[in-house]
């Protein structure tokens, strides 16, 4: 059964200190050409029946994301992503 994938990201104007900390650590790996890192969250939902994108959007809007500080996208997982 295909999964629904919800990606949640902090809005661009919200400071992401975790992303900054990761970006600041990259020079220790010898990486010097990264200008920005931002960290979000990926959530995979499996419905008991057919995947319901509208229902998934409602779940994302009410619980998975806080629209005050976060944006989200909802999509069906690609075929290869859905392999359990």
């Amino acid at each position, binding site marked *: 059964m295909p999964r629904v994938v919800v990606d949640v990201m902090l809005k661009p104007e*919200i*400071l992401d*200190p975790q992303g900054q*900390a990761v970006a600041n650590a990259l020079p220790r790996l010898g990486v010097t050409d990264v200008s920005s890192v931002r960290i979000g969250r990926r959530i995979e939902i499996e419905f008991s029946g057919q995947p319901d994108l509208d229902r998934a959007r409602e779940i994302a809007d009410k*619980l998975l994301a806080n629209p*005050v*500080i976060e944006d989200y996208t909802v999509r069906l997982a690609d075929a290869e992503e859905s392999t359990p």
Partner: protein
Amino acid sequence: MTARIGVVTFPGSLDDRDAARAVRIAGAEAVPLWHDDPNLHGVDAVVLPGGFSYGDYLRCGAIARFAPVMETIAAGARDGLPVLGICNGFQILCEAHLLPGALTRNQHLHFRNRDQWLRVESAGTAWTNAFQPGQEILVPVKNGEGRYVADQRTLDELEATGRVVVRYVYGNPNGSQRDIAGITNEAGNVVGLMPHPEHAVEALTGPSLDGLGFFTSILKHLLGAPA
């Protein structure tokens, strides 16, 4: 008549006992409320205590918002029920949209635990009427995700309408915008703050007795003192 102040316990609440103790020291009856019980048992006001409700999973306060007790509290708050959210309680109030804005990861990423000076900016709420406007108080702060953020329009509105209740002074522990430590809703019955007044009510354990003012304020309010 003794005022009855409810203190909610969620799975992962830490400071419910201290909050209940502060309520009793102020002279009210502390009524334990349970996250899974929508019945408020006739309380006159509610405290949402600090801690890590539901393990802070997803976002702090995001899951507690949907607890059965919160449905009743949210409806009551819109009808004027006084609600004080401390730390995780403040996060829950923001997640429930009873207060604007959100609490995010501290700017410096460190958990900050120290005694903190605050300035009481608004003594016009149900929970701060025992203070003088501009009074400086010392209470503990302890959080990892206490950075208050809101869009500029919301921040300007909070400032213009006197809804910034307490502000950090002599240092901002978490990068909160405009040094905001606590805010109130339009009606002044719902207050949320990140610092912990319930830990500053006894000389033995607190840095001051300043926190007691929040709990004596609600008693004054319930006795009909003008807010």
